[in-house]
C-alpha cells in the first residue's frame, strides 16, 4: 500500500507537469487539479500504510 501511495504521488505530479507543458486553455487548470487530486489519494494511502507500523513499534 505504501509503494502504491508513493507511485500515485509521482503519477499525480506527472499529470500536473504534463498539464501545463502540453495542454492549452481551460483544460490546464482542470488537469492540474486532477493531478493534485491523485496526489492526495496517494498521500492518504501512505498515511494509512504507516498506521500498523506505528502500532508494532509502540
Amino acid at each position, binding site marked *: 500500500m505504501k509503494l502504491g501511495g*508513493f507511485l500515485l*504521488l*509521482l*503519477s*499525480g*505530479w*506527472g499529470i*500536473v*507537469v504534463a498539464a*501545463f*507543458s502540453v495542454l*492549452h486553455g481551460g483544460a*490546464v*487548470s482542470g488537469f*492540474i*487539479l486532477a*493531478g*493534485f487530486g491523485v*496526489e492526495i489519494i*496517494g*498521500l492518504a494511502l501512505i*498515511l494509512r500504510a*504507516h*498506521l500498523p*507500523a*506505528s*502500532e508494532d*513499534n*509502540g
Partner: protein
Amino acid sequence: MNVEISLALCLVFILLIPLAIAGLSLINVGLGPSRSAAHFMTSSLCVVAVSLLIYFAFGGAVSQGLYSTPLMALTEPKSPLQPSGIFFHAMPWATVAALPALLMLASVAICSVIPLGAAGVRWRASSASLSTVLLAGFVFPIFFRLIATQYLASGFPRLPGTLDAGGSGFINVTGGLTALSITWLLGPRHGKYSLSGIPAAIPAHNAVYVLFGCMLTWVGWLGLNSAGAMLYAGSGAENSALVIINTTLSAAAAALAAAAVTRIRYRRPDASLIANGWMAGLVASSAGCATFKPTIAIIVGLVAGTLVVFSAEWFELRLRVDDPCGSVSVHAVCGLWGLLAVGIFAGIPGQFMAQIVGIATLLGFIFPMTYGLNWLLNKFSPYRVSPDGERQGLDLHELGADAYPEFVIHSDEFLQR
C-alpha cells in the same frame, strides 16, 4: 532607494539569519529530554556544518539559479540561468551575485535543522549528518531549481512561477517532509505509545529555552523573509518595512490563536503549543511576506496557529507519528498553508494554479525522493540508536557526558513500566 543601500540592507538581513538557526536549535533542545540536550545541540551544529559544506561543494551547482536574481538586474543586464559550478568555482564573488549564494547557504542550514526536531532523542548524530548530505546536496537544491528559480515555469510562459519569497516551501516544507520521512523510518520513542496505542505525554525539559528560542527565531526570520523578498520575489528594499510587519503580525496572530485554541481545548494555554503557534506564523508568512497586506498576514497567522494545534494532535493521536518538537506540523503543514495562502490572497491572475504546482511538486516529487533516499540510507547505516542508548539518554550514550552533569538526573518516570 539606491543600489548600494539596497545591497547593504540585504547583507544585514542575511546576517540575521543564523539567529533563526540558533532559535530553532534551542526550541528543539528545550522540547526534548534533559538527557539528550547536549546531543541535540551537537547534532544541530554538525548538520549545519555538513549542510554548508555539501551545498558549497555541489548543492549550489545542482540548484544553479544563483546568477539570475531581480537584485542583480538592478546593476547589470539580466543574465540567463548559469551554473555556479561545483565549489562555486564560477561564482564572481566581488559582484552582487554573491548575495544569493550567501542566502542559499543560510537557507539550507535552516532546512537541515528541521528534521532533528522530529527525529531527535533516537537519531544517531552520524546518521543525521549523512542524511543531511542527501538533503543539502540533492533534495533542497533540486526543489529550489524547479520552483524557486521558476525553472518549471520558465519553459512554459502560460503559467506564472510559484511565489515563495522567504522559503515556506523550499526551506520549511522540504525540511518538514524530510522530518516526516525520517520519523516514520525511526518509529516512535521507547515508551511513547502503550500497547493499546495510547500516547504518553513527555513534557518539554526546559520551556524557557523553547520560548527564548522563539524570540531568537523571530529576529532570524525577519532577516530571512526580508532578504528572500529582495532576492527571490523582486521586492525593493523600500518594501522591507511591509515584509517585517507582515512577518511579525503573522507570528503574533498565530501564537495568540494557538493560545486560545489550547485554552479552549485543554482548559489552560499550553506553552509548547503556543511556541509552535509562533513558529507556525513565521513559517506561513514566509511565502507571501512581500505580497500580503498586513490584515491578510494576520488572517494567515490565525489560520496557521489554529492549524498547528489540530495538526500536532492529529499526527500524534491518529497517525502515531512521534514528533517531539512538532516539526512536521509547524514546517510541513503550515509551510504548505503559507504557499496556498499566496494563491488565495495575492490577487495575481493564475497565481493560485502556480502555487498548486509548487505544492504538487513538493508532495509528488520531493516527498517520494526524500523518503526514498532516507529509506536507502537507513538500510546501509541504521538511523536508530540501540534501545539501551535511548533509555540511557543520547548525551551519555553518544557523547559520553551529560549536558547538566551537576544536576540530579531523574529516573525513567516517563517510560512504560
